[in-house]
């Protein structure tokens, strides 16, 4: 096992607020790693740091052994890091198929002129992309929605489409920002199975932010608990849930408590 993603002593400040405070951890190749913690703990901010939407004030972020701090946001997907968003960010005025095809953007070939002339090579490429996307559609059971526009789809389906779009990238590392939030119990079950399959069949490493401790403990190998941008506890789901520091942090911030205990 070697570390695929390394967060090394990263700090980020917004004005006077320290959003992420000297956080260090590493995600091993092939594991499912979960970030938990109350709202405002800095989980999504960490995702945005890896996506290069924010620049850390100090520290380093390495992917497959190389620092990504000199990469620009659109280069991250090309490295093989895909992500989903907490409040779904799909392409609303496009169909499910088109959304997934955008995920293939990093694999595109064919010149600018070739695309305008639609050369046989470009057509061949298009077939290849569609083949790859159909696999994702089959995997996630999205067939009924293939030609539907996102704007008319229910929330649960959108969540799945976003997961599918990230998979179409064929990433090495998948960042899932609250994959089960707002989903029903059955839908959450599906997500759990998919995460298992994504890791086992596709060999994709998963880093996720999730509140549902049941999901977290059923799929993840290791868990990092954060509060106020600081690391509280790192270990197996069992260890983290029983850590007194974690319990205290949750009780201190009200409603998240039951979920931890449950």
């Amino acid at each position, binding site marked *: 096992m070697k570390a695929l993603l390394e967060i090394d002593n990263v700090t980020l400040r917004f004005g006077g607020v320290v959003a992420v405070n000297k956080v260090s951890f590493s995600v091993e190749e092939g594991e499912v790693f979960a970030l938990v913690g109350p709202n405002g703990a800095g989980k999504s901010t960490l995702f945005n740091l890896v996506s290069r*939407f924010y620049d850390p004030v100090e520290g380093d972020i390495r992917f497959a052994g190389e620092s990504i701090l000199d990469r620009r946001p659109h280069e991250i997907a090309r490295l093989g890091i895909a992500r989903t968003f907490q409040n779904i960010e799909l392409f609303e005025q496009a169909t499910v198929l088109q959304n997934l095809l955008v995920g293939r953007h990093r694999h595109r070939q064919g010149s600018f002129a070739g695309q305008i002339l639609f050369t046989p090579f470009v057509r061949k490429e298009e077939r290849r992309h569609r083949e790859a996307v159909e696999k994702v559609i089959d995997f996630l059971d999205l067939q009924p929605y293939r030609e539907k526009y996102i704007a008319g789809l229910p929330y649960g389906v959108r969540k799945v489409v976003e997961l599918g779009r990230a998979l179409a990238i064929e990433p090495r590392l998948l960042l899932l920002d609250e994959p089960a939030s707002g989903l029903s119990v059955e839908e959450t079950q599906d997500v759990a199975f998919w995460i298992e399959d994504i890791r086992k069949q596709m060999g994709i490493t998963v880093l996720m932010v999730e509140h549902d401790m049941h999901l977290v403990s059923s799929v993840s190998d290791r868990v990092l608990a954060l509060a106020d941008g600081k690391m509280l506890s790192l270990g197996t789901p069992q260890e983290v849930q029983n850590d007194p520091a974690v319990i205290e942090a949750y009780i201190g911030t009200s409603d998240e408590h039951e979920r931890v205990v449950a």
Partner: protein
Amino acid sequence: MDVLQLFVSGLANGCVYGLIALGFVLIYKATEAVNFAQGDFMMLGAFICLGLTNPQFMDLPFWFSVPVAILIMGVFGYLVDMVVLRRMFGQSQVAVIILTIALGFVLRFAAGVIWGHEPISLRTPMAGEYVRFGGLVLGLSEVMVIIVTFLLTLVLYVYFNRTKLGVAMQAASQNQLAAYYMGIPVKRLHSLIWGLAGMVAAVAGILFASKGSIEPSIGLLGIKAFAAAVIGGFGSLPGALLGGIIVGLIEPFASYYIAAGYSQITPYLLLFLILVFRPHGILAQIHSKKV
């Protein structure tokens, strides 16, 4: 021409631009809609006042016509929001921009039909009067423009910071949903903001018409005011006024010192530079989207 005189006439022009820009920013801050017809609102306000007071039309007293014109424009702004803009809720910002541009076309046409296309100037008690400061001779209308703008700014400042309605408007512009939950009638507030912008536009129009002639296409001045609003920073009320004054001051000095063909493009050149190097204006108040 004396530099000081250039300065005052530029300042007076700038105040009018600033007031139109103020209208843009008022509406943008509160409703996120951009009213490209604000310049035409100004034109309409000026023509309503002119129609009431000029001898060839209704020949009413000046000091009666001014508040009536302002009031009419206030009601007009309110109605535009209530009848048209409210239906746009949920559509993109660009749709609103296009809609208000179209509205401008319609207003310009209507004004042309009612008041004709010949340039007319507003009959005011100030016309042709001068004030002397030492050796400096200034048109009374220009001095009035500056004073009225200053007073109006003061009134608006007090309104937004001291009165209940003003504070509610500020709150609604900060966070619409939260304001809605607090029991603030956001929709009515939007209409009120449009009414207020209409009134400010009327003041700008009356001031402009008092120191020069107007015609229906004068609403295109709105483009210049729009540039001013962006130069100052689109989300900031003082920025709008500052931007207007900057544009107003650049014009006379540019035409005085630079060749004729080039001077008129200076405001837009400045706008372009600002957009490239400081996209959110001199007094920036815009924050980027969060995911």
